[in-house]
Structures are given as structure tokens and as C-alpha cells.
């Protein structure tokens, strides 16, 4: 009946984009300052022919290395850089990984809140006996949505994939959720062209972003200030809500992992909510913001380093594009 996170696999593309390389590309771009404020020294960038599905496959192979692929009976692929409109990426993944044809598979389209929603679905499938072992894959190649001259977003975003195995357990491993949506902000983090609303347009004109950067409507537009405003409001509320739903206080939580948006934003949220430094994850130095993969990458990191130990409770929260947000509490 209960669901628990069993294992996490991660894959980062081989190509690394360093601050020094960005500094060579962009004038007045200070590599040390960026590291200090954004908290990022380098980010991984998918190769020209490497898609989110390719990264997803590699992260899955990592997590399934010593596992029986037949034990997986559901695949959820969370991405905003889909292979095709149709078919579904998760179906292709089933075949590439050699999973049983009795595996359920679907893609979900969510950004930075995707991992939390994915956990909610995985837990739900177990609660309803629809699945026994869910492979939750969060994979994005956000850099594919970025204009080469968009220095602000190229600084922040990196590509990456995480594959999380969620299985059954006698004990509760994934507690109650707080989820939310505010679509009134949908225009503040958007790729305007490429879907059915407006087709991808190879001739789309350049647009200046006001900070020396350039994009077109085929590329990601992020209204950074508005997104920050939204997170300042939404994240403290969702943290309070998830604690209430689980009848806990912040003191009962051993560790907190937020979506690693950028150091400045995440650190500000920590202070505002009053989370002690030593209980708080802040590390995007070598990955940047990998969208829905940041939380499992962080979780994997702290479990491997022994920063969180078996039995610990970890509060995770994702927030961003949509707007969409969510939080839950995990027992390791």
C-alpha cells in the first residue's frame, strides 16, 4: 500500500559549458560573479542529436543496472522537450529499456514541479494497485529552447535526467502532498512557438531582452522578476501547507530540498521561511538549473554523501513554469 523511493539514477550529458567559456562568448560577463550569485560554475549541455529521451534512457540504465527490468510495471516520463507530438516518449523508452509489454507508460508535461507531481502519481498508482514499481523519469534539454545569445538563461539552465525507482513498502515513504497551480502566470515562463498555438517559425525575428540578451519566439522567455515574485508568495505557503497536511513542523523535518532554480532565489526562500542552513540543500555548481531533474539529483547527492540517512524525513518542493508548484515529505 505504501510507496517508497528505492533508488535514483542520474545522467548528465558529456558536453560541459563552463563560466569561463561563457565569459569568452559574452563581453562584460564576469565568471566569478556569476558563480557567487547564481551558484553555478558549469552546466551540462545535450549534444546536437541528443534529446531528452536519450538522456532519460541513460538515467534509467543507471538506476536499473542491478535491477530486474521485469520488476518495473509503470514508466512516467516528465519532460517539456518531447521527442514528438506523438507517439509518447515513455512508450519508446519501454522498448529501448526492454521492459515488459505489460508496463504502463505515459509522459507528463510539467517543469520544475514535475518531480513532486510524478511522486504523487507514483504513489497513487500504488495506492490503487495499478502498479508495484514505478520508474519516474524527469528529463529535460532546456538548452534546446534557449537562444544562443540569451546569456541570462544560458547561464542558469543545464540539461540533465534523473530516474527514480518508486516501489512498495510496509512503511510510509512518501507522505501527503500539497499541490497547486496558477495559470494566470502562464506567459511568464514560456516558449511561445512550437506547439499548436503558434508553429515553430524558422524566420522568427530577434527580440532584445533588455539586459543585452536576445531571443526569438521560438525560444524560452522567462520573466525572471515575475517568477521570483511568484515563488516568494507560493513557496512559503506550500511549505506551510505540506507541514500542516502531515501534522508536522519544520523542526520535525531533517532536511529540505527545493527545486534548484538559482542560488539567489533558493537562498532567499530559505531565509524567508526560516530553514537552518545545515538542513538545507543548495548545490547547482556543476549542473545549473536542470528543471524537473534538480530535486532527484539533489536527493541522490545527499543520500550518497550520507547527509541524509535512512529514517530521515526530507521535505521537497518544486515550483515554476505554469505556474505550478508542489511539496511533499519523503521518509528515507
Amino acid at each position, binding site marked *: 500500500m505504501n510507496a517508497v523511493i528505492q533508488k535514483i539514477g542520474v545522467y548528465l550529458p558529456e558536453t560541459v559549458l563552463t563560466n569561463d567559456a561563457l565569459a569568452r562568448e559574452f563581453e*562584460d560577463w564576469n565568471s566569478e*560573479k*556569476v558563480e557567487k*550569485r*547564481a551558484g553555478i560554475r558549469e552546466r551540462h549541455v545535450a549534444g546536437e542529436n541528443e534529446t531528452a529521451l536519450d538522456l532519460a534512457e541513460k538515467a534509467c540504465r543507471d538506476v536499473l543496472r542491478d535491477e530486474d527490468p521485469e520488476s518495473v510495471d509503470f514508466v512516467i516520463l516528465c519532460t517539456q522537450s518531447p521527442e514528438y507530438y506523438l507517439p509518447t516518449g515513455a512508450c519508446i523508452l519501454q522498448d529501448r529499456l526492454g521492459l515488459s509489454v505489460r508496463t504502463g507508460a505515459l509522459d507528463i508535461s510539467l517543469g520544475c514541479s514535475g518531480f513532486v507531481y510524478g511522486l504523487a502519481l507514483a504513489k497513487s498508482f500504488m495506492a490503487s494497485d495499478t502498479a508495484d514499481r514505478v520508474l519516474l523519469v524527469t528529463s529535460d534539454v532546456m538548452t534546446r529552447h534557449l537562444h544562443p545569445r540569451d546569456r*541570462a538563461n544560458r547561464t542558469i539552465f543545464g540539461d540533465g535526467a534523473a530516474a527514480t525507482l518508486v516501489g512498495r513498502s510496509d512503511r510510509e515513504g512518501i507522505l501527503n502532498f500539497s499541490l497547486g497551480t496558477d495559470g494566470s502566470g502562464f506567459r*511568464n515562463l514560456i516558449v511561445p512557438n512550437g506547439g499548436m498555438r503558434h508553429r515553430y517559425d524558422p524566420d522568427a525575428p530577434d527580440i532584445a*531582452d*533588455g*539586459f*543585452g*540578451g536576445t531571443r526569438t519566439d521560438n525560444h524560452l522567455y522567462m*520573466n*525572471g*522578476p*515575475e*517568477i*521570483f*515574485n511568484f515563488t*516568494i*508568495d507560493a513557496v512559503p505557503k506550500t511549505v506551510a501547507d505540506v507541514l500542516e497536511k502531515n501534522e508536522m513542523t519544520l523542526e520535525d523535518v531533517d532536511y529540505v530540498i527545493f527545486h534548484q532554480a*538559482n542560488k*539567489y*532565489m533558493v537562498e*532567499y526562500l530559505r531565509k*524567508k521561511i526560516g530553514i537552518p542552513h545545515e538542513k538545507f540543500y543548495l548545490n547547482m555548481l556543476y549542473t545549473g538549473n536542470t528543471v524537473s531533474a534538480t530535486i532527484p539529483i539533489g536527493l541522490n547527492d545527499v543520500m550518497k554523501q550520507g547527509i541524509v540517512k535512512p529514517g530521515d524525513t526530507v521535505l521537497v518542493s518544486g515550483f515554476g513554469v505554469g505556474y505550478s508548484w508542489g511539496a511533499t515529505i519523503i521518509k528515507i
Partner: protein
Amino acid sequence: MKKTEFYDLLMDTLEIESVDAVDESTDLTDLEEYDSLAVLSLIAMIDEHFSKRIPGTDFQKITTVQSLMDMIGAGSFES
């Protein structure tokens, strides 16, 4: 908040090193420190010290320190 305090706060928030001091006539967009991340630090500073929220697109209208103070609200400052 006293305006002079606010100028110091700005120096601090934006980690300004390219000039020795700012006042109401300083054009923020001329400062090399003023970039997209600097705007985030302004939002954090305004939230922390003034408990106010300024619509994201309004930040594009900011030029001088005075224009920033106008946006926060003249009532928040004393000379």
C-alpha cells in the same frame, strides 16, 4: 527608511563596486552590476525591507534610483 540608508542598502544589495556611491540620480542601468540577477536581488530587498511586491514587467521601466524609489512608493522614504 531614510534615503541615505536606502542608498547604502542598494550598494550592498547590488554589490556595487564600479562606483563609490549612489544617489537618487544614479542610473542603475548604467552600472555594470545591473543585470537580470541584480533585479532578483532588488525583489528580495524590497520584499524584506518594504514587504512589497512590484510587478515583474515594471522593472523594465526602472532607470534611476529615484524611479526605483517611486515604484516602491514615496511614502516609504524620508529625507
